């Protein structure tokens, strides 16, 4: 291990462990737990070290198999990917602690299968963040998708159908992306992203390049469930085993937003994106606006916690896509900060839901009466996550929303500003409805207090850590933006 290849180990640890989990975890869930937590703890620590290295040395590149770029595959880590690497490994670690309990209950005896896929999914997500090669990115994208299909299909009832639906949509998305990359390869003769970025300005903005950009964007939008290409997500994430939702919901969409940012600014250039076809830029902000409003409205119609959260995820994707396409620094800062914050608050809410489902069997609203008395710690953390989604200061969610709205004002995209405010208000309605049911409904004749019946400590611990993190990150968002996020933004933008 050295400075130049440490990030490769961050990714390899879960990938290799996946095979050991499959080999040695068949007899004993304890072995699965030790291997999974061990590898993710290693990745988390190592990713922090990678961040430290990047702060000192700047961009660090590792060429796999010693085949020099642009022909070999480059694994690159810069400020932005280091942030993502920490986010993925820490979220995966926290999620897995709770998932071990949840999977033990929902899929007894199949832990080794679940966690083998789970770890490969995480390795795939890390690969997406690290790769410097557009085709390798496609490979990683398929690794994450295929493992997700498998994890989702392990759920009960209609889960295999939801997974099949996701397979179709996901494959269409992957085709679009691959076609886009093929166009770029035809035009530039390279697959290395840094190389492409050098060549593209010299060949002008012809129709082929525009088509490539369009195909890549549409492909990624399907994968990130950008409205109206979100159709696969609500069913897939709500019918999947709770443990699969725990990892997929916070990370998959957010990492795909990262990919969009990466390809937009590190392969194409902001001049090309925003000025060659100005209608495209404002058109996408309008699409994001429509997405935020429609997804928020759909969330209102749900009567189940998990399903409600899945529509909120779709709305949040609109926040980030809109923020990136505002074409100003404030908006992009907000979008990148929101990738981090949204991942954490989605994790917080899904961890709470996992604890509730563990105890109640499901998250239907009708079952939630008296839940605050039964599970006070879980619900306290849930409330923090909810406030962050609504955007109540000083939780993290407020500050990324601040930048996003400010970006909208600076760009004069008032429709986007209004959509964000509307979505905040809808979130307030959504979550206070649950607080009202869970806290204030009382049976007129029932004077006995409901017994306390909390989820296991292993499900509460990551939840509490996550809720505290939301407040700490909120209060620390000044230094976070100034000393990390600012450096992670594309140079000269």
């Amino acid at each position, binding site marked *: 291990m050295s400075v130049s290849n440490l990030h490769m180990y961050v990714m390899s640890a879960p990938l290799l462990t996946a095979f050991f989990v499959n080999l040695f975890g068949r007899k004993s869930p304890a072995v699965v737990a030790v291997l999974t937590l061990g590898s993710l703890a290693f990745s988390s620590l190592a990713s922090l070290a990678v961040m430290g290295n990047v702060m000192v040395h700047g961009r660090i590149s590792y060429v796999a198999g010693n085949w020099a770029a642009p022909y070999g595959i480059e694994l690159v880590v810069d400020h932005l990917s280091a942030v993502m690497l920490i986010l993925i490994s820490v979220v995966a670690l926290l999620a897995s602690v709770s998932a071990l309990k949840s999977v033990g209950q929902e899929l007894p005896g199949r832990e080794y299968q679940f966690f083998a896929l789970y770890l490969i999914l995480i390795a795939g997500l890390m690969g997406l963040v690290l790769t410097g090669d557009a085709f390798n990115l496609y490979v990683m994208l398929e690794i994450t998708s295929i493992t997700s299909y498998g994890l989702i299909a392990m759920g009960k009832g209609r889960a295999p159908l939801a997974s099949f639906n996701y397979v179709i949509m996901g494959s269409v998305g992957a085709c679009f992306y691959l076609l886009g990359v093929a166009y770029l390869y035809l035009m530039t003769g390279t697959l290395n992203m840094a190389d492409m970025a050098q060549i593209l300005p010299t060949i002008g903005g012809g129709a082929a390049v525009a088509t490539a950009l369009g195909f890549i964007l549409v492909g990624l939008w399907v994968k990130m469930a950008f409205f109206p290409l979100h159709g696969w997500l609500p069913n897939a994430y709500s019918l999947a085993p709770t443990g699969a939702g725990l990892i997929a919901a916070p990370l998959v969409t957010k990492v795909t937003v990262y990919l969009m940012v990466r390809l937009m600014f590190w392969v194409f250039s902001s001049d090309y994106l925003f000025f060659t076809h100005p209608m495209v830029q404002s058109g996408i902000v309008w699409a994001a606006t429509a997405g935020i409003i429609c997804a928020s409205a759909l969330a209102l119609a749900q009567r189940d916690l998990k399903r409600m959260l899945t529509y909120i995820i779709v709305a949040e994707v609109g926040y980030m896509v809109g923020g990136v396409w505002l074409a100003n620094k404030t908006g992009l800062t907000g979008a990148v900060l929101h990738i981090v914050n949204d991942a954490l608050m989605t994790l917080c809410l899904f961890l709470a839901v996992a604890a509730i489902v563990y105890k109640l069997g499901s998250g239907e609203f009708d079952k939630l009466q008296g839940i605050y008395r039964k599970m006070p710690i879980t619900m306290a953390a849930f409330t923090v996550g909810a*406030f962050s989604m*609504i*955007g*109540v*200061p*000083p939780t993290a969610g407020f*500050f990324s929303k*601040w930048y996003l*709205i*400010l970006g909208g*004002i*600076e760009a004069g995209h008032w429709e986007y*500003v209004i959509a964000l*405010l509307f979505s*905040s*208000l809808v979130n*307030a309605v959504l979550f*206070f409805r649950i607080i*009202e049911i869970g*806290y*204030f*409904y*009382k049976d*007129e004749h029932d004077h006995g207090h409901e017994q306390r019946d909390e989820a296991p400590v292993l499900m509460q611990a990551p939840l509490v850590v996550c809720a505290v993190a939301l407040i700490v990150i*909120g*209060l*620390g*968002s*000044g*230094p976070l*933006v*100034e000393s990390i996020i600012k450096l992670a933004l594309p140079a000269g933008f």
Partner: protein
Amino acid sequence: MSVQSSIWPLVAVLVSLLAAIPIMLSDRTPNLRESWTLLAALVKVGIVLTLLPAVLAGGGWEFTIAEVIPGVPLQLRVDAMGMFFALIASILWFFTSLYSIGYMRSLNEHAQTRYFASFAVAISATLGVAFAGNLLTMYLFYEMLSLSTYPLVTHEQNAEARKSGRKYLTYILGTSIGLALPAMLIVYNLAGNLDFTVGGVLAGSGVTPQTLALLVVLFLFGFAKAGIMPFHGWLPAAMVAPTPVSSFLHGVAVVKAGVFSILRVIFHILGPETLQAADLGAIITTLASVTLLVASLVALTQDNLKRRLAYSTIGQLSYMVLGAGMLTAAGMTGGMLHIAMHAFGKITLFFCAGAIYVAAGKKYISQMDGLGRQMPITFVAFFLGSLSIIGLPPLGGFISKWTLLVGAVEGEQLILVLVLLGSSLLNAAYFLPIVYRAFINPPPEGTVNGIKEAPIYCLGPICVTAAASLALFFFNGVFLQLAQQALGLGG
């Protein structure tokens, strides 16, 4: 004296928030639990009073909690205006705590632990609003106040209380997120920071009159706790809460946090001179005038005593906003003074309403015939409180209303003089019949006697606040000086 860095403002804000923890842990020992509340209240008043002399001497205190956004830290700063509000809120919290103990125990209310804990968080938020050093910090505590008072409004947990809770949040959270938040961001976009500056942070930023007009409207309605019509409906609905909540939060802390926020924005964000130059005071005075007249008229029709007081509050809050909107020295001073005068008067009236409910079980004015003979102390206090709100000497309310009238004359706004006088008549018309009924009308035939005064925990605070309303007529120098310092006048 200059502004010094000190942790005491933070302690003053947090002491009650931290007290919420032992309060929750002492669930099973009510006496210990209430000791925590009283202890926190005393510590809070003590700290605020020790910070006072430096502020009166023209200095101040500040504490930066965290740097969250470039140019906008989370920061507490004790200046004259914040001290003005903090003084009222912390003193009245102590008496409300005493009163709460008497009220909640006499009625044997459920969920008292939640009640006292939420109350403690709410007062922390109120002091936070008072001591906030910039608009973002104020917004943070304003939201915290909204959220912590929700469980108090929904206290009863029946269908009506839940419905009122929903209405409360819809109005308060809806306007703060939907209107005040974007307004704050527009200001940040224009000025680059959100510090409270005497003369306004937007002074000299080249803001266009159109944007300024938009901001005025967004802020006026965005801080819906001030109850400017048409965003007043939550206040009568919130009367389902236990009476100490109505008296302290919906007579003093919450509603005044709304008015205070509006005044802060007018004085220290938008700037009176900037508003004057764009001739925008008229928007404020018109909205406030309409609200105060309509609310007073509606108050006349209410038979439920607490609802009548609620509409009266809506009207009186608009006095304060009206004063600020006059943009004259006396008008703005009068608006601020009315925060103090109304606080002591209205809390007395609400305390009385609660005492009547505890002692006699009566909520409706039409049931109160002859009740003054059985509860003379309560009704004398009620009489004093009414006189103060109407604005008659020798009570505190006269001072603020007089200053408001001077402000209207100074600004040569005769129509406002008429509004003020007309409204005072309406105030008299909805308060004095209650007193008349209680003392002069005979009790209805066949009523059971044996109604006595409320317990001492209730009665004591009533006497204190009523006496304070009286005393404020004679001794109001501190409040006057703070108000003038806040406006950058004289001191």
